[in-house]
């Protein structure tokens, strides 16, 4: 069941009605039951044991780590302890907690890795006559369960927070399980922090008309981006990349369409699920903040898929930075500029290599991770050099033209990243780049050839109007909250806007041949 389907809307409607009929203190139980039911319907009952096992393992080990933290705090509060006594106590409790943490990580990350990477082994084993049958039946059980990357990262973040004493341990497993399986975020995130979502789900979830309307408005905007723009672009992009060689001009417009497709698809999904969650009174963390307005690549990754970037920053980049191993490297490389650059580059490159692996296991994803790792390292490492260059060339970094240049630059950087993974293999990536430079045939953009790839002229005109709408809305959102402004207008205006938005989605949504309501791109991760 895709969140961009009528079935999901009906499911949501039934859940909302039952949720608000129930007394406040039982509402979280309704969310838990509806989340488990959603998981079974959308993912399949056979995958339920995976999420239960990961959640329970993380919860129970975090529980014991939390108890260790409490016991340590109690012992440290005793009077008459010397500095050495305190150090010894901390070391004793830390070694116990570390064992518990490692066991939890082996189970949580282990299940993720087995389901994510084992198909390589299975693909090999099925080619061996003596293993083929066993491997084929084992492969059926090693399909990635729905949302495994998201719930594993969310729960692993929780246990690390408990281990580092940044978060209290949860005593009630069912409360914790709701955090892991909560249906608006289980399929594609955001990768929520227990400190935030766990507390949101513990609030008294009361009906608030203004918040419910605001949530519905956000959902409509998400449906617009997904059904009117992303699904229309999907037809064009898949027809080009799946088909025979095309002229360079067609590839170039496809690279542009592909970048817009992933943005409207993923951010549209986020708006739908954040809006749905707001109807229950539960705020999910934002995952997008107008990334194409970024001034630099590091800023782009603070505005695009924010919950993933933030997770890697807190649980990979910082631990690497403060690790003894990194500090030893730091001492060896010294304080000279090159040494500083090396100590900057190593954790950034490792973090981005792993971010690439999170997105996919093939060579294109590894190259994608290295691509961003190198760009971020160069962007930060030479930041002062760029500033000096701007001063020498008398470039006003705050001028409109320079801001526009940076926005276009970010868009090209993003298109470059997509080019590594979208065409389906690095050999295809090379073919696309080579064709753009050697066989452009620019006139094909204007002679009607664009309509050979599944979209009529009407669709193409509509798409460019929609690009403008998305850009204009994003510009306004940078300055103020559109939904708050709308809430201050009179009732007739508000409803006219709501009906126009709903009819725009119904009339212009792409539901024709080739429409697959389950095809949200980030679902595969």
């Amino acid at each position, binding site marked *: 069941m895709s969140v961009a389907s009528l079935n999901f809307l009906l499911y949501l409607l039934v859940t909302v009605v039952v949720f608000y009929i129930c007394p406040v203190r039982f509402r979280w139980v309704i969310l838990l039951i509806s989340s488990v039911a959603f998981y079974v319907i959308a993912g399949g009952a056979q995958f339920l044991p995976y999420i239960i096992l990961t959640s329970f393992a993380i919860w129970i080990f975090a529980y014991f780590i939390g108890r260790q933290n409490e016991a340590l705090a109690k012992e440290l509060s005793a009077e008459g302890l010397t*500095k050495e006594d*305190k*150090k010894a106590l901390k070391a004793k409790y830390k070694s116990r907690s570390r064992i518990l943490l490692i066991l939890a990580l082996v189970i949580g990350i282990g299940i993720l890795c087995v389901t994510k990477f084992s198909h390589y082994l299975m693909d090999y084993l099925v080619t061996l006559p003596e293993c083929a049958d066993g491997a084929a039946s084992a492969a059926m059980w090693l399909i990635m369960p729905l949302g495994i990357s998201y719930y594993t990262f969310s729960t692993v973040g929780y246990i690390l927070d408990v281990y*580092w*004493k*940044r978060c209290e341990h949860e005593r009630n497993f069912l409360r914790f399980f709701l955090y892991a399986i909560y249906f608006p975020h289980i399929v594609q995130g955001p990768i929520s922090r227990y400190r935030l979502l766990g507390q949101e789900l513990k609030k008294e979830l009361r009906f608030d008309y203004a918040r419910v309307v605001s949530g519905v408005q956000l959902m409509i905007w998400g449906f617009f981006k997904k059904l009117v723009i992303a699904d229309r672009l999907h037809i064009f992009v898949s027809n080009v990349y799946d088909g025979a060689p095309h002229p360079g001009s067609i590839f170039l417009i496809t690279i542009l369409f592909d970048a817009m497709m992933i943005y409207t698809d993923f951010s549209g999904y986020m708006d739908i699920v954040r809006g749905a969650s707001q109807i229950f009174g539960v705020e999910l963390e934002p995952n997008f903040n107008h990334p194409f307005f970024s001034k630099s690549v*590091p800023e782009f990754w*603070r505005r695009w898929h924010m919950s993933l970037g933030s997770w890697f*920053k*807190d649980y990979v*980049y*910082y*631990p690497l*930075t*403060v690790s003894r191993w990194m*500090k030893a490297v*730091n001492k060896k490389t010294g304080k000279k500029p090159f040494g*500083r650059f090396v*100590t*900057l580059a190593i*954790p*950034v490159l490792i973090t981005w290599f792993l971010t690439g692996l999170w997105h996919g296991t093939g060579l294109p994803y590894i190259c994608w991770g290295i691509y961003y790792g190198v760009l971020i390292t160069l962007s*930060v490492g030479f930041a002062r050099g760029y500033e000096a260059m701007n001063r020498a060339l008398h470039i006003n970094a705050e001028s409109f033209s320079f801001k526009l240049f940076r926005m276009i630059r970010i868009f090209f950087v993003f298109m470059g990243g997509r080019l590594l993974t979208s065409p389906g293999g690095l050999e295809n990536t090379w073919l696309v780049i080579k064709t753009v430079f050697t066989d452009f045939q620019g006139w094909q953009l204007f002679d009607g050839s664009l309509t050979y790839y599944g979209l009529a002229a009407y669709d193409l005109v509509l798409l460019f109007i929609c690009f403008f709408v998305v850009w204009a809305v994003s510009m306004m959102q940078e300055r103020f909250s559109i939904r708050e402004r709308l809430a201050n207008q009179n009732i007739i205006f508000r409803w006219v806007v709501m009906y126009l938005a709903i009819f725009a989605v119904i009339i212009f949504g792409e539901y024709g041949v080739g429409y697959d309501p389950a095809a949200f791109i980030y679902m595969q991760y």
Partner: protein
Amino acid sequence: MDKIIEILSSLKTGVDFETAENIVTNKILDSIDIASLITALEDEFDIEISMEYMDNKNFDSAQAIWEMVQELQEA
């Protein structure tokens, strides 16, 4: 405290770190600045900053950083 202001100013120009608040929460310093800050603090004050201290609240102002440094020196 002066030394902390000096380190912060070397990381980011144009910010009055004596009065600035929420310097991490409001993204005045990004994650890479914080990595450089940690290295500088450890060298300057002969302390070891572990993951337990890697929380925004310990880096959100010069005063918060100074309090963290003092706590680590006493530990």
